[in-house]
Every structure is written in C-alpha cells, then in structure tokens.
C-alpha cells in the first residue's frame, strides 16, 4: 500500500467502505451477538449504514431500549447540581425550532427569557445561541458554548448582549467573563467580511475576549494525513520519522487544543470565571476544547462512565457532525476531518502524563475511536439529534455505551486511584513539546512487530494473582490453626501460647496491609469479568488479544487488566482473621 495514497481521499475511499462487510467479519465483531445478521449486502442508498441495523429489530427491543437508556444526560446535569437558582432547563428548543443542530434540552441562565434566547440565536451562526456545557458546583463558574456571532463589521444584537450578561450574572462571585474564540485571529477577522466574526469587547458587558489559535478542519485533515505518512514509512531513519512528524504539525495542533482546554479549565477552577467558547459553528473546535477542559476539571469525566457521558454531551448532543466528519457515507471530502480523533488523542496525552488519574485505559479510547468510524453502533450516526431522531436510531440500532460498559473489565486501568490527592481536582498537564508523543498505539496499531510485548499489565495481573493466592493461603493456614487450637492438645496449647503474641501482632499487621481503599481502583471489575467469561484463563486470553495491539508500551501503565477476583477475598479476609484470632 502506497503511503502516499493513505487516507488521501478519505472522502473517496468508497472502494473499501462496503466491500469489507462480509458475513464472516460481522460474526466476529465484538458486539455481534447482540445484532445477529444475515450478512447480506445492504444497498448503499440506505442512509443508515448497514452494520448498525439489526436484522431482527423486534426481538431484543426491551434490551435495546435499556441500552439506550444507559446514559442519561439529565442525570449528568443533576450531578452538576442543575437546575438550580442560577440555571434552568429551557424548553425553547423542544422541537429543534430555534436551532436544528442543538439538542432539545438546554440549560440557560435563570434570567434568560425566551425572547432573549431567540433573539440571541438569530444573531448566531445556525442559531446556536450561548448555552451551558459545564457548571462547577463549587464556585458557580460555567463553561458555555455557542457559534460565532453574526457581527460582521459593526452589527450588534441587544438580546445577544443580554444573553452574555445573563451568563455573567449567573456566576455571582465574578465580575467578568471570558469569551474564547478558538480560531486563529485571522480566520475570525476574515469571517467578518461574510457578516460573521467575533464579539466586540466594547459592546458586551465586562467580557474579556481571547483568541486561541486552533486551526480549521482542513488544516487538521492535511496534518493528519502527513502524520500518517510519517508513521507509515517502511524503514524510516530517525530523521525521516522525526522530521515527518514535525512537519505534519500534528502534535502542535494537539498541543493547541490542549492549551485551549487548560486555559478554560484554569479560568473555571482557579479564577472562578465563567467562559463562553465558540469557533465558527461551535461544533468542532468548541466541542474539542469544552470536553478537554471538562476532563481536566472534573474527575468524574475521567471515569469510564463519565467519559462516555462527556462524549454524549459535548459531541453527540451538541451536534458534532459525525457523519460528515467521519465520512460515514460518501460525501463532501472537504467536510471530513479528524476532530474527534484529536480529542481522543488529547485524552491519551493527558493519560500519559497522569497514569493514575483515569479509570479507563488507552484501549478504551481506541475502541471508541474504532466505533466512531465503524458504524456498528448507532451512537455516531447522523450529524445531530434531530437527524438521529428522524432516523429512529434508538429503535434500529444498538448503543455503544452499554456494550463498553458490559465489557468494562477490558477497559479498566488498575493503576487508577480515585482516592488519591494526586488525581483529584484539576489536572495541570505540561504542554511543553517534550510532553507530546506520537500515539503509536493508535496510529501504528497494525504494524507487525511494532509493539513491545512486555507490558506492565501482565505483571500487574501477575502481582494481583500473587496477592490473591497469598491471601487464600493465609486464610487456609488460619483455618488450620483455628482447627488445631480447637482440638486443644496440650502440646499445641503450649506452642500456640508461645506464638500467640507474634501471631496477634501479625494479624493486626495484616489488617493494615490489606488496604481495601488502595485496591479499590484495581479490583472493582471482578463481576463483569466473570459475567463475560467465568473461566480466568479464557478471560485473560480475550484480554490479551484485545489489547496488545491497541495498548502498547507507550500507553504506559494504562492497560493493566484487572482480573483478580481479589475484592471478595480481601473483603472477607480481615473478618476471617479476626474470627480466627478471637477464637484463639
């Protein structure tokens, strides 16, 4: 395969977009048991890609409905403490009338009346008015998002100005707010000629306006292609690779996204200032930047479930155009761009810097990445909620999130320590260029002999197995001792008297050593494992095959599988200790 062809015309790669759906491959899909299929080729005129349509739509209806209900955005908003006295759920977009690319349920400031919202939406590209993305319970600061204002060179909109002021007022402790335009300044200025543009600081009440130069989707598309070429070289020299990587600019773009996320996260957590983020339409760079900021800000989004809900919220519900950007159907090649790839990579880069801060591992990110493109599940089909509802995706496809959740044992990071000060609160990654690596686990995942075969996860599993065995052994010894002592022969009595102080001390030590809280991160996954494959060996096998490709050494400690059914033991053990000793 010529490297030069690689992904060149991602829009035009139709030659393999359907041909690969053989019956065999579908049967081997990880989730294929959920959607049995005849494997017949589906004519490509169907708007919904073939793989996601179950052949027997009615059979598992109840199950499917539960799948789709697995993640509930409203629950996440109530986790943030919403609605409250500052923010309310607005019914204004109930039928996608104000903005057809926004979700139906949106949070706006209490003081924002429907006329203000509608007025503001008329002054924003695609009607995407400022609305809440994240709210910090602790200090009332909020991340809001919108599209660019239709300001042109001098246009103003009173409602839009009122809307921003309402956002500012919903953060009672702060007397200003940031408006972040994630585009390079030049692009924003150019948009003014088309009657769009950016906010004029003079027209809005106490805003601080800030450009953060993230390049547009075309630059990103070309950059990724160049980066892939660098990764694809057959026998590159050190300089071929490094120069290829640098001239692709890919890592620089990742850094730009991360820098923007850090800016917003710091504004929220450290300054307690609300931020309004937009780019052009507010569905690409805005989605990236808001979600990166959320990952940095809130430990909840660093959990398995939280990360899924983050994608559901900032990407799917706010109308990131998955179908166009991922080229699910042959469309305009200029619409294709690796925007979500960049977000997943940002998350990976942060994981690399904080190996204990995430509940999930790199394999989780890679699996999500695969399914964003695979169309096996309905989540990423369509460009916005309205389209999805029209397609009836909830009725016709399965949800990726519940599949991932069922198999969460594969995606757990046993190094995760939710209880640790190091991993709580705001993460402050370094964005020095030294700290950005090429994600070999994703971009070179199919290269033969590319991946070091020794991985931390093997050893952590081994260690966990060892711990478990020792504890079992300990328990059996203690049972024996208790038994012997009950038998109460004279000699044994003497011996145990002799020993008892030591034994007692040991027992106490043991209790100390058994730190359930320390293990909590690693061992919580027992049950799904067993559910999936009760036999340990089988389980490990699946693990290995799933992960060794995706998660290489570079992902560091991310993918340690956690199979040990220790949690039961460790929970039980101290008790049995005590029982043994109190008997003594």
């Amino acid at each position, binding site marked *: 395969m010529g490297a030069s062809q690689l992904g060149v015309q991602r829009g035009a790669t139709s030659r393999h977009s359907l041909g690969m759906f053989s019956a065999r491959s579908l049967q081997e899909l990880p989730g294929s048991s959920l959607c049995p299929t005849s494997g017949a080729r589906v004519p490509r005129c169907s708007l919904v890609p073939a793989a996601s349509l179950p052949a027997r739509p009615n059979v598992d209806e109840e199950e499917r409905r539960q799948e789709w209900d697995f993640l509930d955005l409203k629950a996440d908003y109530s986790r943030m403490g919403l609605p409250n006295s500052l923010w309310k759920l607005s019914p204004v977009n109930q039928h996608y009338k104000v903005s057809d690319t926004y979700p139906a349920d949106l949070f706006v400031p209490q003081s924002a009346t429907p006329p203000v919202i509608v007025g503001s939406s008329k002054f924003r590209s695609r009607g995407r008015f400022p609305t809440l993305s994240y709210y910090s319970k602790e200090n009332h600061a909020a991340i809001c998002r919108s599209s660019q204002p239709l300001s042109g060179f001098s246009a103003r909109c009173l409602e839009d100005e009122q809307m921003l002021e309402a956002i500012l007022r919903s953060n009672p402790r702060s007397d200003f707010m940031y408006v972040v335009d994630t585009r390079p300044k030049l692009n924003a200025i150019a948009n003014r000629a088309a009657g769009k543009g950016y906010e004029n600081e003079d027209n809005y009440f106490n805003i601080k306006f800030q450009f953060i130069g993230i390049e547009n989707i075309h*630059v990103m598309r070309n950059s990724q292609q160049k980066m892939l070429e660098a990764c694809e070289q057959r026998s590159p020299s050190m300089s071929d690779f490094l120069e290829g990587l640098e001239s692709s600019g890919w890592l620089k773009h990742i850094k730009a996204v991360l820098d923007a996320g850090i800016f917003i996260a710091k504004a929220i957590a450290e300054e307690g200032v609300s931020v309004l983020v937009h780019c052009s339409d507010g569905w690409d760079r805005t989605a990236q930047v808001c979600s990166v900021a959320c990952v940095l800000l809130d430990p909840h989004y660093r959990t398995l479930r939280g990360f899924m809900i983050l994608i559901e919220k900032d990407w799917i519900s706010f109308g990131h155009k998955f179908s166009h950007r991922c080229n699910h159907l042959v469309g305009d090649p200029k619409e294709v761009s690796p925007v979500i790839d960049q977000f997943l990579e940002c998350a990976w880069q942060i994981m690399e810097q904080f190996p204990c801060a995430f509940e999930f591992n790199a394999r989780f990110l890679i699996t999500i990445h695969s399914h964003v493109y695979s169309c096996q599940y309905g989540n990423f089909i369509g460009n916005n909620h309205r389209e999805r509802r029209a397609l009836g995706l909830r009725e016709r496809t399965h949800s990726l999130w519940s599949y991932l959740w069922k198999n969460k044992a594969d995606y757990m990071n046993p190094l995760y320590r939710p209880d640790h000060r190091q991993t709580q609160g705001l993460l402050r990654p370094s964005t020095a260029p030294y700290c950005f690596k090429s994600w070999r686990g994703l971009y070179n995942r199919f290269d033969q002999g590319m991946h070091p075969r020794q991985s931390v996860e093997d050893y952590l599993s081994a260690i966990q197995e060892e711990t478990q065995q020792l*504890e079992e052994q300990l328990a059996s010894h203690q049972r024996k001792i208790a038994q012997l002592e009950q038998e109460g022969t004279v000699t044994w009595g003497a011996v145990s008297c002799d020993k008892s102080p030591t034994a007692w001390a040991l027992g106490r030590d043991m209790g100390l050593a058994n730190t359930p809280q320390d293990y909590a991160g690693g061992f919580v996954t027992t049950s799904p494992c067993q559910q999936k494959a009760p036999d340990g060996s089988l389980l490990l096998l699946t693990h290995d095959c799933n992960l060794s490709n995706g998660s290489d*050494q570079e992902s560091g400690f991310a993918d340690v599988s956690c199979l040990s059914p220790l949690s039961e033991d460790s929970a039980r053990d101290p008790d049995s200790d005590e029982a043994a000793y109190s008997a003594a």
Partner: protein
Amino acid sequence: MFSVKPTKPTFRSYLPPVQTDVKTTIEPPPKKVEPKLLQGEIVVNEVNFVRKCLSADSSQEGLWGKLICTNFKVSFIPTDPPSEQKSHLSHLLLGQHDIPLTCLEQVVTVNDTKGKKKVLGSNQKLKFNPTELILYCKDLRIIRFCFLEAGPEGAKKVCLAIAHYSHPADLPLLFGFEYQGRRYHDSKEQRVNDSIPRGGLRTPIFDRPSDWDREIKRTGASEWRVCSVNENYAISPSLPEHIVVPVSLADQDLKQNSIYFMNQRIPVWCWNHPNGSALVRMGSIVDPLQQRRIDQRFIPAITKSHPQRSEVIRSDLDKCLPNIQDLQCAFIKIRHICVIDPFEESEERWLSSIENTRWLEYVRAFLKHSAEMVYHLDGKNASVILQEEEDRDLNCVVSSLVQLMLDPHYRSLVGFQSLVQKEWVMAGHRFLDRCNHLKKNDKDESPLFMLFLDCVWQMMNQYPAAFEFTETYLTVLSDSMWIPLFSTFLFNSPKQRAQYLVDFAKNKAIPQGEDQLVYFPPVWDWSQQYSMADQTLFNNPMFVGKGAFGQNGEVKAFRRAKKTYSATLRGTPASLRNGQKGGEDSLARRGSWLSELKPDFSLVKDESPSERFFRDCLARPADQQSLLIPLLLPSHLALWKLYFLRWVPEACISKGGPITAYHKLSQLVDEIEILQSHLRQYKRPSPASTPLSSQRRMYFKASSPHDPPSPLDYLTSSFPFTPRGNLCRRSTYGTPISKFLNGARIWLSTETLDNDPL
C-alpha cells in the same frame, strides 16, 4: 591523625557588605552558617550575602546565604533554609546545594553593569568584579549566584578559587585521594571488628582469576580458560591482568602475537552463549601484512572453542558506528537544546532540533548493531569478534549491550554492575579521559558511558519488567561519574589504577596487602552515597514483583490449582499478543484511515535473514528470562526525559509522570512482600528472623487505612530530583524574538482564508 579540621579560611575572604543599609530586610540573622565538611575537606574561600537563584524566569526569587569553595565542592549554605519537607533522594556526602568540583563543566562570571562575561579556567585573572556566577554542570544543572550584595573582592576570589580548583593539575589532586585516605584510617577500628571480605561488596570486580572463573562456569564456557599472561601488565598496558582466552592457545602464542595488535589488545573472551558461541573483543591489527598470520592463529582457536566449530563473525565497529567525536558533538547539542537554550526557542521546532543533534540516531545505531550481533550469536550459532582500533570505546558499548540482550543475569542490579566492571572498567575504557576529569584535553572527552546508559534505558522503556533496577538508578549512576570519590570512573585502565593506588597506599600509610576495594572503594558500594531507605528507589517493583514467584516453593505448589490461568499469563500465543486478532481487525472502518493501516504481508518476502530472526523473536511471547530484542523503529525510541529534562521546569509535570504509576506499583509489591513474610512465619515460626521493616524493598510502603493520607504533592515527573534552583538560565533581556514571533504567528496564519468553511 587529625580529625576534621575546624573551618579555617586561608585568607580573609569577604568584606562587609557595601549597601546593607539599603536593604535591611535581606540582612541575614546573626546565625552562624557552617559548611558540612567531609574528612580531609578544607574551605578554600567563601563569600557571604550571596543570592542563589531558584527559578529560571523570575530572577527575584532566591535564597540568601554563603557561597563556599572547598577542595571538593562548591557549597552554598542558606542563612534561612526554607523548611522544606524531606521528600527525595538525599545524598549522604553532598548537600542539596552542593556541586562537586569535578561536576563543573564551565565556570562563567558575568558583570551585568559593564556587560562583561568571562569563562574562567585555571589560574586566570578576572578584570572585573563579577555580579553573577553561573555554573554549568556535567549533570546538566545550571546554577546561578548573584553577588549584588556581596563584597566585590570576596566574590571575585571565590569565583577564581572555584575555577582554579575545578581544574586539578594532576589526578591525585582529586579529592577522592584525600578523602578515602582519611576515611580508611578513621573507620579502621570499625572494619577490624567486622572484617567482611572485599568490604561486603556483592559485585564481582574481575581483578582476580576467581571472578573470571565463576563467569566461565556460569556461562558454561568450558573451552575457554583464565590466563594470567598479562600479570603485571606484561603484554598489554590496558588489558586487565587476568584475561580469558581459548584453551587451545598457549601463553607463549599470546605473548608472541600480541605485538601485532593495537595496544597489544589480543582477542579476549567476554561471554558465552548457552549454545557455545562466544563473544570476543579485540583491537585492530597494526600491520596489515600480519593479518593472515593472525587469522591462522586466533580464528581457528576461537572456532575450536565452539562446540559445533561454527564460523566466526568479525565485526569492525570503526566502520559502521559513529566515532567518539560524533558522539560528543551530538551530546553537546542535545544538552544544549534540552537545558541551555531558552525554552521558548526550542519549543517551536522541538522534534527537528532533537533530530539535528543525531543523538537518538546514534543510540539507535548502537542498539541496532548490537542486535545484529545477537542475531549471529543466537540465531546463527556463530561466535562473534568485535573489533575496534583500540578496543576501549565502541567495543565497550556494543559488547555490554549484546550481553544485556542475551543474558538475563546482567539485568539484575549486581549483574549489571558486574557487566560494567567487566566490559568497561577492567576492559580499560578511558574513564579519566572520556570524562575529562582533569579538564586538560577536550578532544578526548566523549559520553560513551552515558550513551550506553541511554541504550539501556531504551530497552528498559520497552521492557519495563525485565530489569531489576530503575531509571532512577541509571540516572544516579551517571551522576556518580562526576563525584571523584570512587575508584570506578577515575582511571583510564586497570594498570593506571593499580599504579596510582599503590602510590596512594604508600602515601597514606595504608598497610601493604590491604584490599584496594577497602581503601578506595568503587561506586558499587552505594551505602557510601545513599541510605538503605533511599537505595530502594533503585528497585523496580515489576521485577521484584515478578521475582516473588518461584522463590517460594509453597506458592509455586499452590498455584498448580490455577495452572491454566498462569500458563496463559506467561505464554499467550504470539498470534494473539501481537495485535493480529481476527475479530476486531476485520471490522470495516468506514472511510477511516485505519483500514489503510493494515500490515502488508507481501513485504515480508524480501526480508533479510536477520530481519526474519528479529521478526520471529518479536513474535514469540515475551519471555524476560532470555532474549531481549529492542524495537528499533524510530517511533520506539524516545528521549530519556528523566535524565535530560529532570531539571527543566517547563517539562516538569506536577503530580504526574511515570512516578505516579511507580508509586502505586511499589505499594502493591510491598504489600505482597508483607503477606509473604507473614506466610513464612506461619510456616516456620523462627524468632530469630529479621524484622520485616529491614527487608522491605520498596521505597513507597503500602499504606494502611489508618494512616493519614499522605499528600505526595512532591511527586513530579522529575522525582526524585527537582528543577527548583537547579536550572537557572540567564534571563534574556527584553522580549525574546521567539515570543514576538509567537504573537505574530496568530496573524501570519498559514491557512488560506477561503479555506475556512464557515
């Protein structure tokens, strides 16, 4: 015998500060600040009211105190030491603000008001009063002192003293000679009481036939013998006294033919593969006319020593690897972009600047060549001769890397140290010249040992459980090169060491027959530098955790019940492990580049036999007990951040970095060890067993739910080092041009405007 001398400066070294009335706030409290001196260490000069800069950017942040130059180190004693909690590796002989004189790369004095700058050498004059002293260190630190409040004369004298004493005229003037002499006599009594052979050192030194014998037996090299033909360095001045040669070669043969080799470096044995092939190193042949003669003498003898009599491969390293000047040049460049260049300027073109240094390319070249040698030894069953002009530089790197890849013994701590001892110290690597301890000849300086450590780190980075030691150990080892107190890195050859140490023993009244290791110990006696508790930072939890298996017979027996599980763990079929799993991969990725990235198997056809060998090796399940082939595609090589960037504040990730994982793994392993020791006590209750605490091998101990949560805020990606106060580049005046350009970049965006879709 004198005890420690009271501090007595040789001349009046400071004046009262000139402008104390202006800045009363910074006037130090009337507290005596005394340096901590080692045995035999004397203060040469000192100056008060000096400010040590603490951070790179704001020159305002600093510590006030006294700057002292002794015959061993530059020391700074803060008058008001900040009450920082003890959080990381503390050196027993050096304080937080101390720099050994041998560690100084460059001493630079600056006068800001006059805009003057001078690099100071030995015995030089300084025509201006310095306002600042910048010390560039060999361990990549940059330390800055400001003299604005100090007496100008005093400051000048200290600077000159530092410059002078960091350029010793002769080897015995290095402080180690003074220190170890004193130490020997001061600790004599203690030693008599517990006379452990060789000072209790577990690392073989290879200065005795028995060490070589043991190595021959360990590797099963029955066709090789220890030969003492070089006793008293009779034939070669740079080979050790005892060497290993083929049994079929007589001493006489060796003697006669030695003259045809550069430096009389005849072929000597390094290591034997279990299959019988041997690794041999030698110098080049001086007279090409004698090539045939040598070929007929030595090559058949080496072939004969192979059980299968298989062919001998010769590899001339001078022809295929960069030379020592290339390496030095690359190292200077990479150091420059990592620590010296202002951060903003290196940022933009980081990858290409790294590339331009060629350092990683060289690291890769050495690993690659070593892997090829492994192919011959392991894959082709052939003995290998490494040939280099002097057999004292590149051969050291390649032979030790080959052995690390092939023999798991060398991946243990003691094994690794014995490897360095065998292939570097005893093989006559010119540490004195390559380190340039005497700063006499810059041309000979070359970071070969550093390169070797970087190669080891690359392997460690790819196989995190294969080595008993950590990257902290490698970093500390590299730092030890610049502390002149240990015999390991001070000499050019075993002969030179012997000569100097005989004179030394005579001068210091050390009785004849005393073991060198006792009166001038090598660096391997880590307790000289670090407490036992700190040394646990050298232990790799994954290796230790792995070692927990099998040592304990009971555990092994017990695990039989779960055989399937364990077997899977250790021997998963390669097809599954190398990412070629059927299901997920055959998943069509609509419009995704992923479908394009699949391996192209047709390319496999035209691979060379060695490529095939590597591919097969990599396809086998990772078995850390034997062969370890590093992956060498450029994306697998990384910059060794802990070494190169530990002092760089911009690269420091607070509360993050690999150390956080190390922390958790250490706690897990510690917990296992506690449990194991409890088990042992149940099995064999012995009151005499050592208390658990002394056996614990992990730096981070398992915590209990009753412990107060420790903040661990000091865990950064630089741990156990800290950038604070260790990397103070000179601030640039005005706005750096790069800052300006950065601002401009937003305007001069590359994208065309009409490209922006919306």
